[in-house]
């Protein structure tokens, strides 16, 4: 133990002076059996505050992100040089090679109507493709944003900001613990990324170029067709309600609500591809919802959003009722409005 302590001190002491950061992504740290103690140890950024990505670490975004209490999410990807992710069809998460790191930093500004002004990094989550599968590690930023430290048990953060509608909010923001990362990222017995499906990447990202084409050009992606059909943008009001609502449920719910997910036992499967009406919630009675069912008897009651358990649970912030049950303290009002309109618009029987 003394040895460990000494090693630890040695590791951390340079933090007092100029932060020593590995020159570029450190594949040893990336593929190590366990997590590095700090985000900087991976060499994914050239500065300790993780604003400047290292060579080969590429910014990207998703057409539809999961709602996370209005957090801004800064996504980056590292694929080891000479390796490439494989395309597996538009519906599937890309087949990322060993050594891939998916980096997602959660940030808040005092006024989320202008999220770039005074933005502060709060947590960074890594998904690392190890030799034997994916690992998920949460890191929490210090107050000075000079260091993000591994936090296996997660954290509670007291956050106050103005939300995108202009309303002031104060929340106990939850940084998930490492197991909770796995709860959402579960795929059978393994864990897996959720967002980077080809159809959810197929647009112009933060670098100002089509992401599928750009990644192909960079040699990070192979096998993608010239044109990948993009998922409906949840917030694009020029599109019909059905594909928008289904896309919303897909990214916000289907990571658990699918056959291989944490909510498999519910029999409620909300993936984009799901065709069977009862699995999507039509005529579907609650199984283990408890008070989460409110006064509803079915998940979706066409024409009657207020009688639909789906809306009831989305429109709650109370533990034991709220869905998703991890990852948010606030209600996604825009999402509730969308799903409400979708159900309202459904033809009623007879």
């Amino acid at each position, binding site marked *: 133990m003394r040895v460990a302590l000494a090693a630890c001190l040695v590791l951390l002491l340079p933090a007092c002076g100029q932060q020593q950061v590995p020159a570029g992504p450190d594949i040893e740290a990336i593929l190590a059996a366990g997590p590095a103690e700090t985000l900087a140890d991976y060499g994914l950024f050239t500065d300790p505050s993780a604003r400047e990505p290292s060579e080969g670490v590429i910014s990207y975004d998703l057409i539809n992100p999961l709602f996370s209490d209005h957090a801004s999410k800064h996504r980056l990807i590292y694929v080891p040089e000479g390796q490439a992710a494989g395309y597996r069809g538009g519906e599937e998460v890309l087949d990322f090679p060993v050594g891939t790191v998916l980096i997602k930093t959660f940030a808040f500004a005092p006024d989320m109507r202008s999220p770039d002004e005074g933005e502060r990094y709060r947590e960074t989550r890594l998904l690392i493709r190890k030799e034997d599968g994916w690992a998920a590690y949460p890191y929490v930023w210090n107050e000075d944003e000079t260091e993000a430290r591994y936090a296996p048990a997660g954290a509670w953060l007291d956050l106050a900001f103005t939300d995108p509608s202009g309303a002031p909010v104060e929340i106990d923001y939850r940084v998930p613990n490492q*197991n909770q990362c796995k709860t959402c990222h579960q795929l059978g017995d393994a864990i897996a990324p959720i967002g980077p499906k080809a159809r959810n990447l197929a647009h112009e990202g933060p670098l100002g170029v089509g992401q599928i084409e750009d990644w192909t050009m960079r040699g990070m992606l192979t096998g993608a067709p010239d044109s990948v059909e993009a998922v409906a943008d949840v917030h694009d009001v020029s599109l019909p309600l059905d594909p928008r609502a289904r896309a919303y449920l897909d990214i916000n719910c289907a990571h658990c609500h699918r056959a291989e997910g944490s909510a498999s036992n519910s029999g409620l499967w909300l993936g984009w591809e799901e065709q069977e009406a009862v699995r999507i919630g039509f005529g*579907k009675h609650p199984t283990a919802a408890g008070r989460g069912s409110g006064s509803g008897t079915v998940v979706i009651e066409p024409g009657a959003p207020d009688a639909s358990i789906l809306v009831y649970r989305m429109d709650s912030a109370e533990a*034991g009722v709220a869905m998703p049950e991890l990852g948010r303290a606030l209600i996604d009002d825009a999402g509730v409005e969308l799903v409400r309109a979708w159900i309202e618009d459904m033809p009623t029987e007879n």
Partner: protein
Amino acid sequence: MRKLLFAAASVSVLAACGGAGDGSDSDASGNQSSVNGTSSSASDGTIEAGDDFALRLQTALIEAEPGSTITLPAGTFAMTDGLTLDVDGVTLRGASPAETILDFKNQMGSGEGLLVTSDDVTLTNFTVRDSKGDGIKSKGADRITYSNVKVEWLGEPSEDNGAYGIYPVESTDVLVEGSHVRGASDAGIYVGQSDNIIVRDNIAEFNVAGIEIENSSNAVVNGNVVRNNAGGILVFDLPDLPVMGGNTTLIRNNLIEDNNTRNFAPPGNIVASVPSGTGVIIMANEKVMVRDNNFANNQTAHVLITAYSQDFSDVDYNPLPRNIEVRNNTYGESGYNPQGDLGDLASLIGGNLPPVIWDGVTSWGDNPDSDLNIFINEPDSVGFVNLGLGAYPVDVSAASPSMDRPAGESIGAIPTVKLSHAE
């Protein structure tokens, strides 16, 4: 241990740099906050009482070595989030349910108090209290043991309590023994979509359902005290779930009494249809034996055998109970104040109900009548009624009650359930 040292190192270094660690940050900064000198260093997986208990416990659950034991001290500990365990072979052990209490009254997140997702886990000698959702859930957790655990919601039974107390689901080899569940707004002990199950010597009280075996196979429910619930022991099979075809359950040697608490389940849940005052309900299941139990003072009925009652479209689902045997039970007073739909039906036969009731549904959809083999293997002195509802969906006005027992034959002995991880 390792965590503490790293944290200590981190704090000392940060202090040397000046700036960080102003204290206001302590709740927000995860593992950085775990050092303040009060917590002595742990040995061999013992979590000491003291500051940041929840954080240190969760960290230990994440960093546990497979096969290790994590020991909880005596005390009542406030939890702000659900706990999770995903390491195989871990034993989580408290001092006793009376002494070690994990209190989730101020829980802010997660759908349960404790979630176990790994195999070969043993949970013993502690209490989970007032969780916002379910008490303890184990999903896909094979060879799990719940032993001498308490899950409770304090106060009067309430719609606001969590749904399930002890909640193993999608698991093979499940043992729940010597445990105590109180106040669940659905089932106290709920085993769902699982195979090879023993639920024995527990106390389930003041829940909507005391013990429920649902969409599961090869279960033994033996030697439990099931009292003051709305419904005592339920054996159900429901449609539209990944695992269906619930079968082969033995309900034996249980004390099933005073299950006359009002049904406080939120509407919409299947148990909301359980009439208050019912001892055992068998719904849409195959091969269930109810024998050698002691029934006393259940105001609606001691044993109710019934078809699934809601609409469904699942073509693979059979909503009828079949191969059911009821034998050699002891029956005290019942049926004197029947509740729910059975209250309405009781008026057809003079107001009171006999202890054993079958709804008499023998077909559904376009299917012909089937011989369900409902065998009431009791002396003639034990009252019985066949409500004669005929076809599903249930139409109460179609009832044609009869006291005649259906012709049936014994379903034979239910095979002994042998768990691979326990006697």
